[in-house]
């Protein structure tokens, strides 16, 4: 019999992996990894703000991420700085601000280690509900807009000429990434979230001939990584989040040994 805490951890982790896989495929295709990283770093600030304002940390993280995504879109349109420079500035500024705020709140119970590297083993029924609720919503949205999203990802200009609302789709995708980042914080922590998005997708790439197989494959590989990581964590008493990411990295390394299909 698995202990309750492990079961919750497993179900939470798998839930996030199932969403992070397909969305991660878009992150890879659209080169949004650094964007995801920036949102992830900012989510620490979100938690700190949540504690200060006494709102639920997850809600605070989601709102912070969405606002940051909006600010980024605005600044990107200005085009006075290269995209990666802009992301780098925002990413590290928000991380630093988050750490400073967490320091100021040292008298409250902020578990900095847990925020940075995840605290999956403390997941409870509420977390499960939130993860599957929001995760399900994200998957449904992806499914609903799948064709136009793939078209706009292939070539935004071409899609735009033929009437696809590419700007709205881009904003939608950013919002979805913000939501999944907020969910994944619980699993692997602020510093490792992007790994959960891109490593399973990149692994799946080697075996895929269509966008759909790559997305589904990424969800499955992420699930395997979560299970393997938790086993590792339970048997060797290693931190859960990093163990999961390490398992994903091992999957990726193993995939390099197999022949590529395309």
């Amino acid at each position, binding site marked *: 019999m698995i202990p309750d805490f492990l079961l919750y951890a497993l179900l939470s982790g798998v839930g996030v992996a199932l969403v992070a896989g397909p969305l991660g495929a878009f992150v*890879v*295709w*659209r*080169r949004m990894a650094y964007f995801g990283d920036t949102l992830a770093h900012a989510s620490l600030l979100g938690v700190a703000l949540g504690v200060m304002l006494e709102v639920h940390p997850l809600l605070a993280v989601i709102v912070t991420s969405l606002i940051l995504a909006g600010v980024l879109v605005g600044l990107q349109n200005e085009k006075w700085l290269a995209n990666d420079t802009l992301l780098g500035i925002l990413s590290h500024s928000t991380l630093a601000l988050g750490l400073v705020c967490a320091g100021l709140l040292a008298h409250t119970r902020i578990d900095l280690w847990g925020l940075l590297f995840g605290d999956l083993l403390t997941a409870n029924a509420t977390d499960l509900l939130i993860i599957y609720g929001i995760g399900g919503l994200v998957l449904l949205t992806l499914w609903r807009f799948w*064709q136009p999203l*793939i*078209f706009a*990802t*292939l*070539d*935004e*200009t*071409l899609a*735009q*000429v*033929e009437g696809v609302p590419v700007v709205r789709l881009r904003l939608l995708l950013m919002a979805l990434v913000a939501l999944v980042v907020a969910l994944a914080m619980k699993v692997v922590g602020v510093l490792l979230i992007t790994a959960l998005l891109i490593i399973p997708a*990149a692994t799946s*790439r080697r075996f*895929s*001939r*269509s*966008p759909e*197989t*790559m997305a589904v494959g990424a969800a499955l590989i992420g699930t395997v990584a979560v299970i393997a990581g938790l086993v590792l964590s339970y048997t060797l008493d290693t931190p859960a989040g990093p163990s999961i990411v390490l398992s994903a990295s091992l999957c990726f390394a193993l995939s390099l040994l197999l022949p590529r299909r*395309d």
Partner: protein
Amino acid sequence: MNATSSPLIACENVSWRRNGVDVLQGVSFHVAPREIVTLIGPNGAGKTSLVNLAIGLLEPTQGRVVRQERLRLGYMPQHLRFDNNLPVTVERFLRLASSDKKVIHHYSERLGIAKLHNQQLQNLSGGELQRVLLTRAVLRKPELLVLDEPTQGVDVIGQAELYRHISELRDELGCGVLMVSHDLHLVMAKTDTVICLNRHICCQGAPESVARHPEYLQMFGKQAEDIAIYTHHHDHEHNLHGDVVPAAHHHHDHSNCQHHHS
């Protein structure tokens, strides 16, 4: 052209500025149904900008662009900008434009890409990709076909073939064609109207008259001479009816030309 048929697309005194630089000034032209209009001009002449204005990807800073109501556009971009990690077969790519398998089959056979259907898009050669892009553009049965340098990365034989396809498709679909081209000698034989562009319209008209126009000869003097040599040595279907040969002798006369390039 027939003055009674209303144009598919008309640019009226269109100007466009980017970052304070005039890219296009006072450009007026139109594309009538079944007409092939070709934009030629040196690099930086604003050809692609003008196409983007015509199809609504850019908004003119002055003047206006009138498109026929509910005009069905088929657009063939210069290239696709998709990430290598997005696995897409040719067939899947075509299905984004049409769900009608018969139509896809018909035009794939027509343009000789049926055997490429199961190949990955990123593994195609330059010529194959251009034919796939052209096929995709006609799947929607466009009333106006817009082609931005359709022969990029295609060898000379492939270029001639591609222009033949374009003119045949025009006859079959009864659509107008607006294209940007560098291939003077090939395109001149297959077009109804040539527009010689260099930030403004230098001259426009039937290929025979444009080929004798002093501004055209000033712009393409060297190349026009090459065409003369080319058609002289190879008496084949893509020549300029011999008109270029005498014209090339006049190309030193452009000192009389009133035109100033600043």
